[in-house]
């Protein structure tokens, strides 16, 4: 996905960009509202992450102008303020969602997914692998004779593997991607989800293979 991050704190912006790039996203960073408008005028983004307190104004002014220009790019506001009143006002102004700093990136991912789903997601989210089509928004695996609805973790595991077929993912990487930091999980927990996915994929030409000592990879026959 292509993100635009509008955030004036350089350190935080740098860290967020690094973090999102780890998941294979492309991120542009704008330090103020004006630069943000310049970016949106020339590039089309999948999602805008917007800070509220910016040097050249309030993030709300960006939101208002963004909506006035009938830009459809969803906006998730990052706020440091705890005032729920603020957050409710943000949604009224046209923000799709808000998150309170510090950001939990797996939560951000979940919120992006929810926003996309609410926006009625487009067909480009349909991924074809062998005889299988995968709709990441609704979380369904479309097999020739049946549709399988994945649960959230199965969906995210499949998404990680299917976005890079052939690439080996270690158990620890998968734990990072699947579980939030406040859950105590052992790497063996991954095996449960791999097992479930394998059962769902039995009728397809897609296989998850175990590379002993290294991890798992997805293969298309």
């Amino acid at each position: 996905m292509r993100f635009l991050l509008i955030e004036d704190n350089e350190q935080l912006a740098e860290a967020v960009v690094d973090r999102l790039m780890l998941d294979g996203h492309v991120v542009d960073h704008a330090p103020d509202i004006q630069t943000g408008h310049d970016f949106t005028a020339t590039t089309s983004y999948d999602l805008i992450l917007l800070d509220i307190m910016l040097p050249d104004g309030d993030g709300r002014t960006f939101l208002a102008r963004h909506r006035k220009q009938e830009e459809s790019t969803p906006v998730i506001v990052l706020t440091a303020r705890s005032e729920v009143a603020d957050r409710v006002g943000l949604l009224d102004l046209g923000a799709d969602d808000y998150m309170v700093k510090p950001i939990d990136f797996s939560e951000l991912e979940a919120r992006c997914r929810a926003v996309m789903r609410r926006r009625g997601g487009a067909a480009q989210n349909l991924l074809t692998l062998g005889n299988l089509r995968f709709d990441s928004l609704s979380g369904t695996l479309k097999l020739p004779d049946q549709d399988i609805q994945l649960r959230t973790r199965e969906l995210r595991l499949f998404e990680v593997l299917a976005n890079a077929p052939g690439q080996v993912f270690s158990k620890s990487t998968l734990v990072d991607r699947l579980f939030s930091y406040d859950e105590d999980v052992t790497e063996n927990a991954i095996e449960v989800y791999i097992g479930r996915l394998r059962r769902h994929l039995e009728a397809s030409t897609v296989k998850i293979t175990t590379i002993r000592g290294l991890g798992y990879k997805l293969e298309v026959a």
Partner: protein
Amino acid sequence: MSTPVAHGSIRRRLLLSLLASAAVLAIVVYFVVQSVARQVAQESQDNVLTASALSILDSARLSGGEISIDLPYSALSMLDSISDERVFYAIRLENEFLSGYADLPEAKENGAVSPAYLSAMFLGEEVRVATVRRRMSTDTGRSFLKVTVAQTLSGQKQTLARISRTSMGIGAGFFLVWVLLAALISRSTIRPLDRLTSSVSRRGPKDLRPVAAPVPSEMVPLVASLNSFMRRLQQSLMRSEDFIAEAAHRVRTPLAVVRTKAEVAQRKSDDPETRKALREMIRAIDDSSRTAGQLLDHAMVTFRLDHLAREEISLHRLVHDTVERMRPTSELKDVTLEATEVETAVIKGDPILVQNALHNLLDNAVKYSPSGAEILVALTTTDDGATISVNDTGPGFQTDELDELPKRFARGANTQDIVGSGLGLTIAKEVVEAHGGTLHITNNPGGGACVSLLFPSS
């Protein structure tokens, strides 16, 4: 809020001083009327006595050196006409007794003044005595003929008693009328104070505008200091609101930097020890940011509770929105979150607080539910009010800690290794109680906990 100690009452003091002065006035009026009446009665009696004495004196004839007195009937009958008084007389020539009551005392002339009067006792009765004299030339030379007439006072006393009763009645009537007037006066004097009191106490909780209505000049200093107090209060409230927002900003932004960098480093590292250390760091950061967040939330809640708004809240919409907003977080943990039974309900209150309370309950439920669990939210209505209940299939609460849980910073025994500050239930409880409702925590028979918020129908 403590009730100020009342020390005395202006109205009572005003009423009492008005009544005391009225009582003094009534007594004075009584005595004045009585003394005037006595004086008038005495004067008229004196006049009659004088007239009677003079008519006796006028009838005195000198014939051949002898004094003859033909006692005129009218002289004594005019005295009789006053009342049933007994009348006495004495006629003397110088000191020689001529006729009448020899023992009757004589009013001593005061120099040349005639007539002279005297109050004295005669035959065991109080009498008023008048004496007139005239110079007569007799054989023995010129000498004074003195006529003394006296009358008892019992009739006059009765009259005076009647007058005194009447004046007492007048005094009492005057006093009663004054009591009514004093009550009216004291009430109308206090009325501006009452008006000020009701105009201040009728205000909405956030209304800190100065009092603008005109007040009597004596109350201007009071109202001026009240206005200045309210201005300072408003400033300090605004400062604390700003402070909460500012503190949140200052704490969260650096935490966000540290957490994100730690997450990047953790993802990049292959060393299990480093990864473990970084994971623990991130959890500690989450812990402190949650605590900071809930403390600030709690401060915000306390602040808003002091100034509870009374807006109409569509509970069904609020439940729906809050559940939707929580769903991504629950999905992350593979926890199903559903609003099942949602009836239509509208209450009066602060929507932000109620949303915060429900958010905290859902946050708790998601946090303490194991992967694969279910959280069901319901909004039901009865005659008593509306109930939002959050049912989960988690471990439930230990029965011996159900009462302790909503206290600040209390955490259940089965919450090891889960990030949380323990303020969530406290916030929810304070919010629902501020709206006149109650929070109930129970364990479901089939396992799992049920936390419900009952809002009474307004």
